[in-house]
């Protein structure tokens, strides 16, 4: 069914910043799985993990939780439905 949501530009901008940082984290995770002794890569990884958390805090304050099962906090009422599903945007 069609549930196209109208969202401000800032949703897409912030989401893209998150996607960029999280891509670094995916790529470094796989790299570190086969290069566990690369200290520079681990420093980059921890820096990106910090940036990702900062960006997601900002995003969730404006658009609602990105994750649940307790990985994000909830407002009242339950706001898991607020951030749109990714195939709807």
């Amino acid at each position, binding site marked *: 069914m069609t549930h196209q949501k109208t969202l401000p530009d800032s949703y897409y901008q912030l989401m893209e910043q*998150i996607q960029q940082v999280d*891509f670094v984290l995916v790529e470094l995770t*796989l790299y570190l799985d*086969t*290069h566990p002794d690369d200290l520079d890569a681990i420093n980059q990884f921890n820096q990106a993990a910090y940036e990702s958390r900062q960006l997601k805090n900002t995003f969730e304050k404006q658009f609602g939780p*990105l994750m649940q099962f307790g990985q994000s906090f909830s407002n009242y009422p339950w706001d898991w439905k607020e951030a749109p599903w*990714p*195939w709807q945007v």
Partner: protein
Amino acid sequence: MWYYEKKLQYPVKVSQCNPRLAKYLIEQYGGADGELSAALRYLNQRYTIPDKVVGLLNDIGTEEFAHLEMIATMIYKLTKDATPEQLVEAGMGAHFVNHDHALFYHNAAGAPWTATYIQAKGDPIADLYEDIAAEEKARATYQWIIDVSDDPFINDSLKFLREREIVHSQRFHEAVEILKEERDRKKVF
């Protein structure tokens, strides 16, 4: 356990309704070398692969689910506004009479997904070479879809996925080397 995040790994935009392109993309949804096969193959093999490479299979398997969601998003967006007539014209008539606009795990020719697409031999070298082959076949499939697609937005997302197959293949090659090193080290004693 897994946690879901309301975020695509990479943005998916479409130019316009295009059920013909969606029909081709279904190959990477429920086809032999598609993302469902990939995710299930690696996550199933990880229980019996040596500890040194469990993390890699676990993490690549997890990333494959993010790719499956990107492919699903492409198919959904390309078909959601299509009329039954447009679906028939695009060769999706048989899909429509069984599934309406719902997605389903079959390949571009309509054959349903089957576990016979994947393998688990319990032999780490055999399993990792299967994984390398799977990534190369998926990379080739993405290239063939890009070759027949005229949607620049879809092609951008497909090129991202094609590059991920290359990275996965390289990481699996490294995993083979790690296991060979381990084997040769043990022989010294």
